């Protein structure tokens, strides 16, 4: 279907429909990660011995990735600013910086995992490593999904079309950030 329904253009709550939808998506995402992380925390509290396993994670690599991801959110915010000014091409460029940040994050993560697996810490090594790979893997899947969507949004934004999407993908990206801010201390710092 080519034409947008009139329903989509209505705005009873005075919040743009797209943004409203993104918030609802995030609400359901929060409980996905919430369920996983509270399972992890409940079990971790019962198993003090997991700290020995957690000691093998590389805090510095995790910290570097935290920095990369947070910086990538900065360019997402600047992209939103540019989009609000109506400067689509600028917003597209900034979004591509964010994609680059996500790319570095995933790249570092894959080197990190390769190293850990080579050392013998696989997903079946112990329950700590099961949670480690599951939680970080689910998060990385969200990072990659965000990069793909951002790529599409950047392409239309460069033509000055559908600029409201720049903000929406930005909200999602901040959420991915926030999840990582929970994961980093839980998986790397708590030893």
């Amino acid at each position: 279907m080519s034409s947008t329904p009139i329903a989509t253009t209505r705005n009873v709550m005075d919040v743009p429909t797209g943004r409203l939808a993104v918030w609802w998506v995030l609400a359901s995402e929060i409980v996905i990660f919430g369920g996983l992380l509270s399972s992890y925390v409940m079990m971790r509290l019962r198993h003090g011995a997991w700290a020995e396993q957690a000691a093998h994670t590389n805090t510095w690599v995790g910290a570097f990735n935290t920095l990369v991801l947070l910086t990538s959110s900065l360019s997402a915010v600047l992209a939103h600013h540019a989009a609000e000014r109506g400067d689509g091409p600028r917003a597209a460029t900034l979004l591509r910086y964010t994609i680059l940040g996500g790319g570095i994050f995933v790249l570092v993560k894959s080197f990190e995992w390769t190293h850990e697996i080579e050392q013998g810490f696989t997903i079946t090594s112990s329950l700590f490593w099961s949670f480690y790979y599951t939680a970080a893997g689910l998060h990385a899947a969200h990072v990659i999904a965000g990069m793909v969507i951002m790529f599409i949004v950047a392409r239309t934004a460069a033509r000055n079309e559908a600029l409201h999407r720049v903000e929406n993908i930005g909200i999602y990206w901040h959420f991915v950030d926030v999840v990582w801010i929970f994961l980093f201390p839980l998986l790397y710092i708590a030893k």
Partner: protein
Amino acid sequence: MIAGYATHAAHRDEGLIKKYLWSTDHKIIAMQYLFTGMLMALIGGFTVYVFRMQLAFPGQPVPLFGRVSAATYNSLVTMHGTIMIFWVAMPVLLAAFGNFLIPLMLGCDDMVFPKVNRLSYQVFLLSAIVLVASFFVPHGAFGGAWTAYPPLSARSTYNLTPYGSTLWVIAVALEFAAFLLGGVNFVTTAMNSRAPGMTMFDVPLVVWMIVIASVLFMASVGPLLAGAVMLLLDQTLGTGFYDPATGGDPVLWQHLFWFFGHPEVYVVLLPAMGIVAEVIAVFSRKKIFGYKTIVYTAVATGVISFFVWAHHQFIAGIDPRMASLFTVTTLIISVPIAEMVFLYIATLYGGSITLTTPMLWALSFIAEFMIGGVTGIFLGAAGSDIYLHDTYFVLAHFHYTFFPIAIIGTFTGVTFWFPKMFGRMMSERLGKIHFWGTIIAFNFIFIPLFITGAAGDQRRVYNHLGFPDLATPWRQDLRIVATMALVTMLAFQPIFIFNFIRSMFKGALAGANPWRANTLEWLAPSPPPHGNFAELPVVYRGPYEYSAEDREEDFWPQHIPGGMPTPAETAVHGQWQA
């Protein structure tokens, strides 16, 4: 607006595949969900026929199926539960009626995100295909019960269905993804796209209920999705999230499952309650008694439903203090539901009741659901549950709630909105024969099972005759009564299918508003064209203004101007409209 309607109409000439598989029209998507759900109900109905025959006549070959092995029995029981809840109740009550009614009742031309809506159905269809395909893989469909408790579900050496169990988890996860996509659409549409003049308290109850149910679903399914990922990894990679040998915990799954599973009861109950509310108002020609109270109690039910889940785990070794806590919350949640039932009865009181087929279904919903609700009290209290747990009493209780929800609720909605969906009336005579045959037989299935259950019959037993205590003749007689009643009930269903298909083509023409109802969907032509309304309506009053004084007609549609709003309505308008 007329111009918009014309451009919509111009898009109608599409190919058949494009129209029915690739459509973004909310009504077509609703029909896709409805027919997929009804098709899955046939599979679910066939599985129960086979395993009930096995229970009544153990070891005898079942007509149309053959001899049932113990492993097949497990698969059939598992698939019956899974299909009926996730592939019948949810797609029909939530997705089919939600998609059909929300835009029409809110005076929209479509959902806010038609393409997301289409994707939702496509993912759902994929999930259904994966689930049905699991019947045909080596060792058959998943046999670890629909609640999929580990370690039974996590190790194929226990459940004996290595491929079926993995396909089951994948299908369920896909299905949840589909409903998350749908839920975002429902909630956003209801929040942002109501017709001009329509305040939150002018929204028909069924839309309220579907939206509250969608929010409940979105807020509760996440932990189970995470749990499903963990179960999948346990099954395929050999992790030990639920395996005590590696420090995991099988009860963790029970928490994740029921944290979703109990709100899920209300996810399907609330839409059915909403459908019944619409039908009761129309056929008693009375304003709904306590409209706002119903909305508030539905919200309260939704909130409380997040704090009752562990009543499914009283014998799973949870702390007795926690069990007392969950007993209290469980007993509390019956209060708002009882209140809703009272309000429905108060709506009926003094109304001019017409016993049409949809009204019969709606009334039977209230009666049968009350039996389910009252027997639930015994199971919510830890003391009596420890005795009744995992007996046929639980099963009978559960079916006295879910049969009214999934089956009676669906029949109520389909018979009521059929004229809108297809532009023709269903046969009342066939409808009533089908109604009485189904309802009487239904009670003969489950009342005997309450008795055998209270006497200690365990669930999930392949052949009761293998246990001397359970093999007494009177118990077996009651099992045979239940099975015969089931076969009778299933035998009445072709009448409905015949009535449905025949009425689609040969029923009397319905016109736009055959029931003389108030809500906006009855303003649109039957069936509504692409774009729904010739001119998008403006709303002037609440949805239940029946038998208003000083009006000739006994109904007062929402879109007709005139009449002064009450001070309360003005206050509400001022509040929500600003």
